[in-house]
C-alpha cells in the first residue's frame, strides 16, 4: 500500500507550492495544503465540523511522521490517503453509532446551511454524497478512478459510474435553470 501512496500523482505540485524532495517545515506544508484539503472534505462530508476534524487528524498523523513523510516523493499523496482513510473510518463510525446518534447528533448539512447563494455549492448539493465523493476525488484532487476506488473502498467501475452520474446530474441541473 505504501507504494500506492507514493504513486498517487499530485494534481499539480508546483501550483500547490510543493516541489518534490524538498523538505519544508511542517507548518509551511500545513499552510500550503490545508485549505484545499478542507474544501474537498467539506464537499464530501457536507459538514464543516466533520471536515475540520478529519483534516486536523490527517495533519496530526502526518506531523507525527514528518521526518519520513517530508522525504517522500509525494507527501501530499500521503496526506490525502491518510485523510481519506480517516474519512472512511468516520463514516463507519457514523453508521455504527447510528442508533444512539439519532437523537443527539447534529443533523445539518453544511452545504445546505451555508453559501446556498453560491452557484457552485448549490449545484453540488444536487448530487448524492457518493457522487460528491467521486467527483471531488477525480475532478478536484486529480485521482484516477482506480486510485479513487481504492481510497473509497469501492470498485473503479463504480467510481466511473458515480462520476458519470454526477456529470449528468450537473449538466441537467444547469440546462434546466431558467
Amino acid at each position, binding site marked *: 500500500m505504501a507504494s500506492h501512496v507514493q504513486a498517487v500523482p499530485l494534481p499539480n505540485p508546483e501550483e500547490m507550492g510543493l516541489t518534490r524532495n524538498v523538505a519544508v517545515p511542517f507548518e509551511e506544508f*500545513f*499552510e500550503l495544503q*490545508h*485549505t*484545499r484539503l478542507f*474544501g*474537498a472534505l*467539506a464537499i464530501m462530508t*457536507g*459538514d*464543516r*465540523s*466533520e*471536515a*475540520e*476534524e478529519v*483534516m*486536523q*487528524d490527517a*495533519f*496530526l498523523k502526518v*506531523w507525527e511522521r514528518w521526518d519520513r513523510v517530508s522525504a517522500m516523493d509525494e507527501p501530499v499523496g500521503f496526506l490525502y490517503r491518510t485523510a481519506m482513510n480517516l474519512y472512511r473510518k*468516520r*463514516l*463507519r*463510525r*457514523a*453508521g*455504527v*453509532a*447510528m*442508533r444512539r*446518534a*439519532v*437523537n*443527539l*447528533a*447534529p*443533523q*445539518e*448539512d*453544511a452545504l445546505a446551511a*451555508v*453559501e446556498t447563494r*453560491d*452557484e*457552485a*455549492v448549490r449545484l*453540488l448539493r444536487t448530487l*448524492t*454524497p*457518493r457522487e460528491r465523493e467521486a*467527483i*471531488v476525488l477525480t*475532478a*478536484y484532487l486529480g485521482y484516477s478512478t482506480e486510485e479513487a476506488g481504492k481510497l473509497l473502498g*469501492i470498485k473503479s467501475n*463504480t467510481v466511473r*459510474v458515480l462520476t458519470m452520474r454526477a*456529470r449528468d446530474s450537473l449538466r441537467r441541473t444547469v440546462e434546466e435553470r431558467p
Partner: protein
Amino acid sequence: MIDERDIVRRAAERLTPPGPPFERLLRRRDRKRRNQRITAGAVGFAVFVAAVWFVTTGGPFDRAQTPAGDGAVTDPTEQTGPPHPIGVGLLGLPPEGATPSSPEHGQLVLGIGFGHTDGDAGRFSLHLYADGRVIWQRLGDLPGGEHRGSTGLIEQRLTPEGVDLVLAEVLSTGLFDHDLELVDPLGGLHYGGIEVRDGDQVVRLTWGDTGFDKGADAVATTPTPDQVSALERLDARLEDLASWLPATAWEDPEFRAYVPTSYSVCYLVEGETFGRSRILELLPAQAAHQLGAMDATRGEAVNLLGPFSFWCSVMTTEEARGLVGILEDAGPDTLDDGGLVFTFPAGRGEQVHVDFSAVLPHE
C-alpha cells in the same frame, strides 16, 4: 458543456476552514497528548488491577464474581482525572452465560449526552436510574488508541443517597425550571441534551444543533456566560462522579460491563431511504427471514452521507446471538465504537449495515 472541475474548485474555494487553522490544529494536538498521558496511567492501573483480580478470584472462570466484560475491573476512586476504563464495556455480544444487569427495566431519572465536538465522534452519555444504576459510555478520542473509539457501556451503582446527590447537582445549575433550548453563542459547548426527573416532572435542556426533541414548551434562549460555565462544570462533574461523590454514595463503584437482556438490531443502507423489504432483500436469506418475521419500527436520521431510514427489531440476546451466527457466515463484521455491525455490499457502491445495540433499562 459543463466543467465539473471548475464547479468543484469554485465550491471548495467557498468552503474555507475556521480560523486560525494552525492554532486550532495545535489545540487538537494538545488535547490528544493529554488523552495519551491519561491513557498511560489508566491502562497501567487497569492491567495491575486485572492481574490482582485474576490472582485473587480465580480469573474469568469464576462467574460468581466476574464482571460481564472481559474481566478488567478498575476502581475509579484510585484514579486521577476522568476515568476511561479500557476493555471493560462490551462492544459486541456478552459471553454466553453472562448475567444480565438486574432488574431488566428501570425508571430513568437522568439522561445526558454531551457532544465534545461538533460531530458525533466525541460524545459522552450517561443514564441514571431510580434503582441506583449508572450506565454510561464515552465515544471519540479515547485514551487507549484508535482501535477502540468507545468505552462500551459501563455500569456502576449508587445508593439512594448517591442518586439524590447527582440529581441535586444537576438541578442546582438552575437550568431546569422549565424546558429550555440554549442557542448560540455557546462558548466551548458544542451540542447536547439533559433530561432530568424532578419529582413528577421531567424537564429537558438542549444546546447546540442536536435534532433532539427539545420539549413541547421549550424556550429558546441565548445562554449567559454563567449558564455556559454551569453546563461545562456539570459536564466535568458527571463524567467523573468518583471525583466528588462521597464513598457513602456508592453501592458499587466498580466499573462493570453493562450486560443487556435484549438487543435492538437495526438495518439500513447509508444515504438511502429504502423501505424495509428493499433492505431485507440485500441481506442473507436466513437473516432476512429472521428479521422479516419480527416486529420492526422505522426511524429516520442523518449521518455524513445524508438522510437515511432504518428499521429496528428488539430481540433477546440469544436471538441476537443466532442472528450474529448467520451474519458471520455471510459477511465481515466490525467491532467498532458503538458495538457490533455487519456490512454487506448493496450494489452501486452502497452498503447495507446491520447494527446490534444493547437495550437500556428504560428502553
